[in-house]
């Protein structure tokens, strides 16, 4: 419904967006987060720059070592990891503040007939806009990197930034739901941090137990961000994250309807949970993915991928390796994660009777990797990408492609991060404090 103010018409939703933005600007928690982002990003960027420079030859490192360096892994993954820390420990306090049940504002605002979901969406939009402002800190790091003479590959930078935006969306949805469900912000903060710690526990159990836990851990925020930090965009991960964001915001919308009975709200929340779970399961079957890294770190060579796409028979791999065995980690990251992207008919089973595998070494079959392609079987113990491909080509009767693709030579940069400490540790906080003073005056 249009509203009159100074001769102009503005929908109620726009008024709400403007209100939420003003509340964000007035929020001390947001300014503290913004001020902290500089030093957080700075310490990661400066540390990464120093290591990168040393590996690139600064200070007499052996020539040629730096040639394999990728800025994505060497600089941007650690630099942007500061955003992950802020999203886990700072953003929840900003997000919780915006579902304000203490001041009485919510009691006034819910008396507008706007749908609760629209109300929560306005809050989420403003929070994500606030998060984008906070992400100016890594943007400063990118500008400094360019000034130092570094090479930046925009697709991988966009991917990593999108991953952190999605992660922030998850935090906002979770915090909004917690704030709507609880009466006091401190309870909401504890609930939000408990969920975050819970996902870490899932990751820990996955590392020890493997199996279903390992699959579940693949969709935790930590794992999701890690994939984006490697330049990989997976449809299932993105869709599941969006489903979780939608589910969290829907639960928040349900619980800000103060006039509806708690039992009905609980029932509706369970229904939203079930629908979200179904959507998540459906999304987990999505196989599309894109490797946005400049060095194709998530993909086999183009020749190998062409050869693998010609193999249509279902491939089963049975690896007798325990969850904590480093060879299993190698096999997964160097070969199988890449193989899943080109062979949709791949199924992988890990077999082990212990989690660390230390006492299984004497078992005759431990360490074996069995390949079954359309009924033809072979066994190998090699966990490298080359070994896996060799076994598959042998079973498929396909000739291994010859020659090399253009090899990524890396972008070494033997330059120290001069001036960065001053910018991130002094100028950034000072500018944020000055801006806070001016805006909140």
């Amino acid at each position, binding site marked *: 419904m249009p509203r009159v103010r100074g001769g102009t018409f503005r929908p109620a939703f726009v*008024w709400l967006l403007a209100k939420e933005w003003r509340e964000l600007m*007035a929020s001390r928690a947001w300014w503290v987060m913004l001020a902290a982002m500089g030093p957080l990003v700075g310490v990661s960027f400066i540390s990464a720059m120093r290591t990168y420079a040393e590996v690139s030859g600064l200070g007499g490192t052996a020539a040629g070592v730096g040639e394999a360096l990728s800025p994505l892994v060497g600089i941007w993954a650690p630099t942007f990891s500061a955003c992950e820390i802020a999203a886990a420990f700072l953003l929840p306090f900003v997000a919780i503040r915006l579902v304000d049940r203490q001041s009485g504002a919510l*009691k006034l605002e819910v*008396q507008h007939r706007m749908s609760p979901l629209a109300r929560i969406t306005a809050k989420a939009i403003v929070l994500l806009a606030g998060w984008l402002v906070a992400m100016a800190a890594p943007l400063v790091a990118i500008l400094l990197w360019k000034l130092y003479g570094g090479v930046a590959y925009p697709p991988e930078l966009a991917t990593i930034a999108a991953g952190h935006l999605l992660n922030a969306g998850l935090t906002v949805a979770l915090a909004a739901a917690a704030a709507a469900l609880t009466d006091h912000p401190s309870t909401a903060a504890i609930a939000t941090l408990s969920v975050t710690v819970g996902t870490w526990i899932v990751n820990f159990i996955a590392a020890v137990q493997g199996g279903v836990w390992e699959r579940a851990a693949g969709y935790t925020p930590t794992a999701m961000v890690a994939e984006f930090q490697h330049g990989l965009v997976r449809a299932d991960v993105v869709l599941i994250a969006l489903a979780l964001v939608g589910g969290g915001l829907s639960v928040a919308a349900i619980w800000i309807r103060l006039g509806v009975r708690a039992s009905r709200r609980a029932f509706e929340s369970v229904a939203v949970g079930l629908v979200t779970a179904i959507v998540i399961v459906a999304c987990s079957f999505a196989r599309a993915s894109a490797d946005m890294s400049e060095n194709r770190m998530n993909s086999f060579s183009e020749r190998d991928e062409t050869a693998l796409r010609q193999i249509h028979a279902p491939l089963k791999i049975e690896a007798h390796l325990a969850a904590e065995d480093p060879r299993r980690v190698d096999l997964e990251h160097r070969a199988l994660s890449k193989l899943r992207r080109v062979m949709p008919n791949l199924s992988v089973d890990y077999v082990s009777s212990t989690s660390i595998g230390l006492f299984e070494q004497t078992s005759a079959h431990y360490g074996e990797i069995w390949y079954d392609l359309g009924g033809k079987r072979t066994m190998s113990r090699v966990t490298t990408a080359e070994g896996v491909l060799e076994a598959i080509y042998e079973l498929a009767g396909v000739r291994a492609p010859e020659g090399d693709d253009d090899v990524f030579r890396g972008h070494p940069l033997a330059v120290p991060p001069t001036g960065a400490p001053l910018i991130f540790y002094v100028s950034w906080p000072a500018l944020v404090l000055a801006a806070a003073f001016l805006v909140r005056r």
Partner: protein
Amino acid sequence: MTTRENSALRADGFTKTYRRVRALDGVSFGVRPGEVLGLIGPNGAGKTTLFECLAGVLPLDAGTLRHGDRLVSLTDRASLIFYMPDGIAPWSAQRLRWALDFTIGFFGGEAEGRDAVVRELDLAPLLDAPIGTLSKGQRKRALLGIGLLTPHPFLLVDEPFDGLDLRQTREVAGVLRAHASAGRTLFLSIHQIADAERVCDRFVLLSGGRVRGEGTLQELKGQASDRGPERAAPPGPANLEEVFLALT
């Protein structure tokens, strides 16, 4: 003519229980268009609970609300009733000027009425102050201003005189009466009986979560007399305080 026939808004059988405490126990009453209705009751009578249930910001266990012959759903209340709670400090970091503009813009109030409300409630000196920095009385006037700028035909105000001094109470009572005369229906929860007598046309007496009487002062005095001589108010000019004591 009965109260029910005259009612623009009719609450029937409002019941609300907090765990084992029954805050409202089958509360029924009517609100006539353009009147100032006072909800009178001691602390803990259930006044705030009743207002929150009426406004739809607290779920009812049982009861219905009708506007004329039509049942009012939770969604419908958003265009019919606006409730201003007591003791809140909404948007505390924002200036009052912005809060008034937001109220008009967000809820669809009349922008033309803004200056009049500011003048009536003497809000001009407070316009540039953040709401959180206002004193109790100043905040009460600010909240009344926000409430009066909303477009809803029924305005519920919890304790409109709480925090105001005698002069301000008289002035605000005049402002509220003026808005009622202009067509706005006001339902005010008041625990100071003298204040209620000054501003209200009719009263709903609430005690222990039950309606003990409803009507004008004269009607209530009659109800008190009907309950027997031992409960009747003393003879002479009707006094709400005595009527209240007689009926509760």
